[in-house]
């Protein structure tokens, strides 16, 4: 199975997490307070795998009969998924009590979904992508409805499942067409035949169907319909995972499957498709977010518009674009985890305090939370010196380098619109006076998660250089 120890090492992250899942299932079976053990076990597990992946970033190899690649940017994605999941777990510890769903399997499902994400990022074969995607998605469907007693959660879960299955249908059909024309599912072989096959209508349809399927997963317009309802109905911590880990994994899958195209410059074939959905997503997300009153729905539309910025990086079709996408995904993950994290901390029992107007005067009672949320909002709005700004800068730079200045211009115009709704929250928290007091229970593990996010946002915003070098060295 492995030719040498080196290969074994590079596959170790997946082995560890798979073993972790088995251990967790055993603990869940026999321990009474499994939810407490499993939460901290998961935090530790994700931390270890994340660090291990970062440490092993240099050792690139392709293993398991050309099915899985490791090392390089794949490991950056590994680390990103695991740190995302770690922060989500930290936020969940107190949240699950409020949400009335103290189940150990919650953490097992998160671990499973992370394994799926890692497979997607590591894939060298269309089937591995599919395997990872389904592993992740099935875990997600269950997580959305983890509290069986809540109608809204069940609705979100079902909606997610139906549209997810629909998207999977597109992807499978796309894979079938690609296999039919290219006679292989190996990504390397498909890439080498890409130019030759690009005249073949069936092949191109296959690629497009494949991309459309993933457009659902990254929440791009016009494949976004599930996003607001699912984000609103799911537990807040799980919405955080959907909007960060799920989106990152889908982008990782697009990047690995099209990577050869980006580096060879053959990506121009899919550029029109990407440009169109990127512009539509940015503007649709920003404009509709303006009129939202529920904070989770607002963040859902912001997620759609951010998918648009990220697609600009893909449409640019050069290595800068890919580096920009990876950087912005990291920044976006941190900002969104922070924003959803605060939502989950402020949310009270029975899903109260989720209206944007509930945040009025927050700076008086909870200056720390208000300050942190402001930083997350400014970063999402792309204002320096936070990480969100640099991510956008790099993506726009990639677009201008590949002579798509119009995408950068449309991108900044959409940013201006989005500033309004991000700042609306800051306005409410700081500029409105209210005598209504939110009751917020103590949540130390959640605060830890927020501090990690905010620290990284500031560091990545002021000193993006070293992380950028790591990304660039892997491309």
């Amino acid at each position: 199975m492995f030719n040498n120890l080196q290969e074994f090492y590079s596959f170790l992250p997946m082995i560890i997490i798979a073993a972790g899942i088995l251990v967790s299932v055993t603990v869940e079976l026999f321990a009474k307070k499994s939810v407490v053990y499993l939460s901290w076990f998961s935090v530790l597990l994700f931390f270890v795998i994340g660090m291990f992946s970062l440490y092993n970033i240099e050792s690139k190899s392709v293993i398991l009969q050309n099915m899985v690649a490791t090392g390089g940017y794949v490991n950056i994605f590994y680390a990103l998924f695991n740190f995302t999941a770690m922060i989500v777990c930290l936020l969940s510890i107190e949240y699950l009590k409020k949400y009335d769903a103290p189940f150990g399997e919650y953490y097992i499902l998160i671990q499973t979904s992370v394994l799926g994400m890692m497979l997607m990022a590591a894939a060298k074969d269309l089937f591995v992508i599919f395997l990872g995607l389904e592993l992740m998605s099935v875990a997600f469907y269950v997580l959305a409805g983890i509290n069986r007693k809540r109608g809204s959660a069940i609705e979100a879960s079902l909606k997610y499942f139906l549209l997810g299955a629909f998207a999977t249908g597109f992807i499978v059909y796309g894979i079938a067409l690609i296999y039919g024309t290219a006679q292989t599912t190996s990504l390397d072989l498909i890439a080498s035949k890409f130019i030759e096959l690009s005249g073949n209508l069936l092949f191109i349809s296959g690629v497009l169907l494949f991309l459309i399927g993933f457009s659902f997963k990254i929440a791009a317009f016009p494949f976004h319909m599930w996003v607001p309802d699912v984000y609103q109905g799911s537990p807040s911590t799980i919405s955080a995972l959907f909007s960060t880990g799920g989106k990152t994994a889908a982008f990782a899958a697009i990047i690995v499957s099209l990577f050869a195209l980006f580096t060879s410059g053959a990506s121009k074939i899919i550029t029109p498709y990407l440009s169109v959905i990127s512009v539509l997503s940015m503007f649709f997300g920003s404009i509709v977010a303006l009129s939202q009153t529920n904070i989770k729905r607002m963040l859902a539309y912001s997620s759609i518009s951010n998918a648009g910025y990220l697609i600009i990086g893909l449409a640019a079709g050069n290595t800068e674009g890919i580096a920009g996408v990876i950087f912005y995904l990291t920044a976006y993950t941190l900002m969104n985890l922070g924003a959803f994290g605060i939502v989950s901390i402020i949310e009270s029992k029975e899903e109260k305090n989720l209206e944007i107007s509930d945040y009025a005067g927050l700076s008086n009672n909870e200056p720390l939370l208000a300050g942190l949320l402001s930083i997350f909002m400014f970063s999402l709005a792309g204002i320096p010196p936070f990480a969100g700004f640099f991510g956008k800068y790099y993506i726009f730079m990639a677009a201008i380098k590949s002579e798509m200045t119009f995408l950068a211009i449309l991108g900044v115009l959409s940013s201006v619109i989005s500033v309004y709704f991000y700042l609306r929250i800051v306005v409410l928290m700081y500029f409105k006076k209210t005598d209504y007091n939110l009751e917020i229970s103590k949540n130390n593990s959640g605060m830890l998660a927020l501090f990690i996010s905010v620290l990284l946002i500031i560091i990545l915003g002021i000193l993006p250089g070293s992380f950028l070098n790591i990304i660039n060295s892997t491309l």
Partner: protein
Amino acid sequence: MENNFLLTYLIFIPLVGSLIILFVKNDKIPLIKNLGLFFSLVAFIISIVIYSQFDNHNSDFQFVHKFKWIEGINVFYFVGIDGISLLLILLTAFITPLTLISSWSNIEHKVKEFTFFMLLLETGMLGVFASLDLFLFYIFWEAMLIPMYFIIGIWGGKERIYAAIKFFLYTMLGSLLMLVAIIWLAVYAGKITGGFTTDFTELINIAPTIARDLQIWMFLAFALSFAIKVPLFPFHTWLPDAHVQAPTAGSVILAGVLLKMGTYGLLRFNLPLFPDATLIIAPYISVLAVIGIIYGALVAMVQTDMKKLVAYSSVSHLGFVVLGIFAITTESIQGAVIQMVNHGLSTGALFLLVGVVYERTHTREIADYGGIAKVVPFFSFALLFASLSSIGLPGLNGFVGEFLILLGSFKSGVLNSWWFTVFASSGVIFAAVYLLWMYQRVVFGELKNPKLEKLTDMNPREIFVMIPILIFIVWIGIYPSTFLNLSEKATKKVIYQVNNPVNILNNQSK
């Protein structure tokens, strides 16, 4: 080149101060105020040291501090100043402690946040004037919005939220297009010389080679951002709202320094980077500037609110500055630079004085006042002084700037028409009308409003704030050479750059 850390200390001392204040307990208000004042005074002292070491005869950037900041995109932390930026840095470091003292008693709630944001703002403003890398410049330019937004939004008047958001969105729209232009320039530089760069001192040799049509687009992208900030007519509509709603300290900083960032940007970046476009567009922008001069003055004339009147007078006065910049003669640009300082002093003083009476009476309506000359003699004296300075009475600072601008624009070969000067001059007359008329209605006449009888004159703290400003108003009026000498070399260099754009392609072929 040897790195000089003085500028870096100057820029980041207020930031350090603001972070320290963050860790002081909320209720230790005197400590917070003193810390804020201390750090802004340290910054002021450093700026004086920089001034004393500045070499008038050197047209290069001085006090340069440069190191690689973000390797992947070749961005440098690169600061340095010439005479133009020095004057504005001195102005910033001078005004900030004064505004902190002036808001000693009228900011009562959230003192900690206020001081924090004021110091943050100072770092942003100083950074804008010192940055020589466009990326760094942009970071300061944008980051500065956040504290100003909070200052207007938290401590402002009734319509503060509307004003704060309007201010933010307007500025953001302009600056994001500038961001695209900055990236485009850097990519262009990468194509010409093989190295992606946002270094201003390198771009200045590369950007003028851009084809004329594209240069015009680039010019407009930069100019829009700066014109909104100035604000140039017709982009001025955010200004009255922001000014009127902002607390006194906010208005003073806004008028004193923030608006100058726009005119500074035009002078520093637009002229030398896009010389061909500058020569083509200069007359059009000058027309807008002249319209702004007259429009601002006329609208100021009919205001019933003192603060609004001063706000519209800013539109008019900054029209002069823009006209001076785009007349592109030594006199006019020198006049524009000194007028930036003048406007900061005189309008700053006017806003402070309006704030003084507003704090006591809680009204800014001109009609509510009248006949207070006997009740508050020192206030009346100071208001007269500041108004005359703003009008441009010979012997005071405003005259020097406006005279040089009008002289320069009259001679200007770029504008090539004396109509600009004729119409602009009318602005001076209008200024006399609206300011003196306001003065007459507020200070002279009979004391009709019985509440005003109990009005107390300026207290020692307020006088202490006003005196240094008045000293500089007279100093610049009587002996402007102290200040004009500082910026002369830099001004001549800009004019040379516009008229003799470097052609890197020719240089290479030689």
